């Protein structure tokens, strides 16, 4: 079993007076795909944002590659090698595809072959045909591809991927699954927040189930698939 890349101990988060996360503890290991599943409003998106420092959160320990994340501003967290693809994609719609990629570019760590626009266009061939197009003239699926490609331009060791299959055509969902497999093959760990159970079950090594901000399950995806009672209770599938 490989070393944990990202370690979260007892993380809580609140929006004003409303507490949303109640003590999550989990690890993301190098090169694995970890699914974060749960019903709408369970706290999946908040978990990812809290790790990135985008919502105020506390944790006993939040380490990435052995470095503490607590009190770091988001840009420092990103520079440690943690990528983030938000749920609403947040493409820079005034910028072209190439410019969006440029905005995400960061130098790769030693011993890694860096992501380049050309390599990313192999992963997402649709984007190659619209390099000069602006974000506001792209479909939802194309924006989703661009959002992932943009984050990969930062050469992250791990990527927090929020609902990549939401609201996009089935054929593109297939492409997303393929892209996640390629990332994994390249050694990029993925923390995948997903509502689409079939999608998550198909590509993840391990899974965390959260319900109303609390952890209900942590283990291998195979175990979760086998535990029908838990799935029905917490996910309705």
């Amino acid at each position, binding site marked *: 079993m490989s070393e944990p890349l990202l370690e979260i101990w007892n993380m809580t988060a609140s929006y004003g007076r409303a507490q949303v996360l109640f003590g999550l503890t989990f690890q993301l290991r190098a090169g694995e795909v970890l699914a974060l599943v749960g019903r709408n409003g369970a706290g999946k998106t908040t978990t990812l944002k809290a790790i990135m420092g*985008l919502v105020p959160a506390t944790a006993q320990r939040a380490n990435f590659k052995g470095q503490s994340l607590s009190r770091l501003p*988001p*840009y420092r967290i990103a520079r440690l090698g943690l990528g*983030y693809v938000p749920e609403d994609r947040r493409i820079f719609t005034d*910028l072209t595809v190439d410019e969006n990629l440029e*905005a995400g570019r*960061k130098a790769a760590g030693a011993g890694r072959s860096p992501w380049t626009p050309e390599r990313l266009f192999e992963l997402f061939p649709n984007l190659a045909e619209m390099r000069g197009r602006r974000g506001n003239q792209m479909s939802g699926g194309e924006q989703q591809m661009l959002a992932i490609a943009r984050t990969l331009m930062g050469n992250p060791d791990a990527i927090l991927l929020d609902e990549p299959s939401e609201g996009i055509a089935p054929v593109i969902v297939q492409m997303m699954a393929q892209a996640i497999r390629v990332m994994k093959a390249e050694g990029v760990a993925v923390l995948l927040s997903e509502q689409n159970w079939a999608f998550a079950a198909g590509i993840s090594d391990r899974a965390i189930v959260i319900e109303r901000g609390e952890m209900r399950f942590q283990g291998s995806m195979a175990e979760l698939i086998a535990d029908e009672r838990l799935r029905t209770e917490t996910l309705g599938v």
Partner: protein
Amino acid sequence: MDLSFLAIQALNGLSSASSLFITACGLTLVFGVTRIVNFAHGSLYMIGAYTAATLVPRLLELSFGPVTFWAGILASAIIVGLIGILIEVLLLRRIYGAPELFQLLATFGVVLVVQDLTILIFGPEDILGPRAPGLRAPVDILGRRFPSYELVLIAAGPIVLGLVWLLLRKTRFGVLVRAATQDREMIAALGVNQALLFTGTLFLGAFLAGLGGALQIPRVSAHAGMDLSIIAEAFVVTVVGGMGSVPGAFLAAIVIGQLQAFGILIFPKSTLVVVFLLMAVVLAVRPYGFFGRPEVIGGTHAVGIASRERSPFAVLAVLAVVGILAALPLIGDAYVLKVATEILIFALFAFSLQLLIGVGGLVSFGHAAFFGLGAYGAALAVKWLALPMEAALPTGLLLAALGAALVGAFVVRLSGIYLAMMTLAAAQIVFAVAFQWVDVTGGDNGIVGVWPSAWASGPTAYYLFALALTTAVVLLLMRIIDAPFGYALRAARDSAARAEAIGLNIRRHRWIAFILSGAAAGLAGGIYAFSRGSVDPTLLGIPTSVDALTMLLVGGIQTVTGPLVGAGVLHVLRDQIMPLTSLWRLVLGLSIIAIVLIFPRGIVGTLRAWQEERA
């Protein structure tokens, strides 16, 4: 009027458009990235002019020639750019998350500080700069002489546009700036250090302001007051062009330059009015200017008063305060009563603004318009209709209410920063009319001989009269704030979408709030006119609007009584400190900045927070 004359006018228009664009371009860039409307941008322009007018002649003494001249202009702009960095690091960085009202006030604090520092450093005299070597001879255009320096200026605008375009399109800095303009949080999540980006943007913005100012030295002397005149025009350019849009600013500058050049032929006295009318028309048709876009959701954060449990002693407290104030003539001399009368007037003025800002979340930056309309309405009624005070005061109130109804009809469609800019523009229109329509308003000299009726003419009588009116109107407005109408306004302030969804016609509510607030401010203005016996355009100026805002800020924007306390404290301080120092604006500016940074809740808000903590 022949062809050559028209050509010369068009060229004049283009050259002033160029200067305006260079300055406004910096303002719009800074707004695009930081979302702060930097009031101090005009001050940076002024510093650029003063620096160049001081620096370039010395350089020319060392080595006379065009290269030296242009190097001096560039060096001045770079110095201003560095000052921009200083402002970003010391102030702006701390208020990026603050409500926009605080941002506007804090940067206006910088305006005040710079005004006094400029006089301190460069002296009170205007400084006439050197003419550009090699560009002294005029050129011949269709048989008319045209200064060759103006031709260089005409070229400078498109050159700057081109360079800024290249910077934004072809460099990584430009890509990041444009990305940050759209989504600051996302750019941080991609690992970009916003602080550096913002500092860089402020350097660029300040550099352009400094360049705009430095380029003026062969045409006009550097003088105090150029800061506010350019900032008002630069605001118009950025708003008309669409805030954050560089090409929009360019187009708007051209339109405005031509409008000024030819407007002067049609209405010789109405150049200012024409410009601000253009802004009103453009915003009425396109609320976000030529190339602007609606503000990002969540970009505006209104602060205001919340509901509180009514204290059982409220009635007693009001009676006690009014009783004590009414007893003041027993102990105070005429001077104290005069100051007290002014405090009452400003308390009413500030309170009327609270109805818009604290209750309605409508950041009006031109409330002086209604104060001044009330004052001028009363004064004009005395001068031209020979009405007594009893009839002149309601005339002023009516004029202010009508003005507010007109302005309100335009601005209730807007929100946040566009509303602030639009109200500022409205106030500048009224200011321009009062200033330029000399035959009726007396222009700069204003109107004198506005005295109260005999029964109210003594200091005691007039003080009691002002007290009675102020008390009545403040109590009436408090009642309105606590009525369903007030709740509706607050609901619209906190979430316009939700308020609309439950069936509130928020535009109508806001419009009525504008009229009520304008009428109350107009009454304050009328009382003020009769207390001083005269009116003049300064009543309508930006500093008067900022005075009211400062009173709100000092007292506390989140409290009902804040503006009343704020008016008292600020006026007493002004009365005590102004005679002691020639640097009153420096003191006031630093105080405003300090309050924004340290006590954003104001006096009443801070006291109340202590009270609640102890309880």
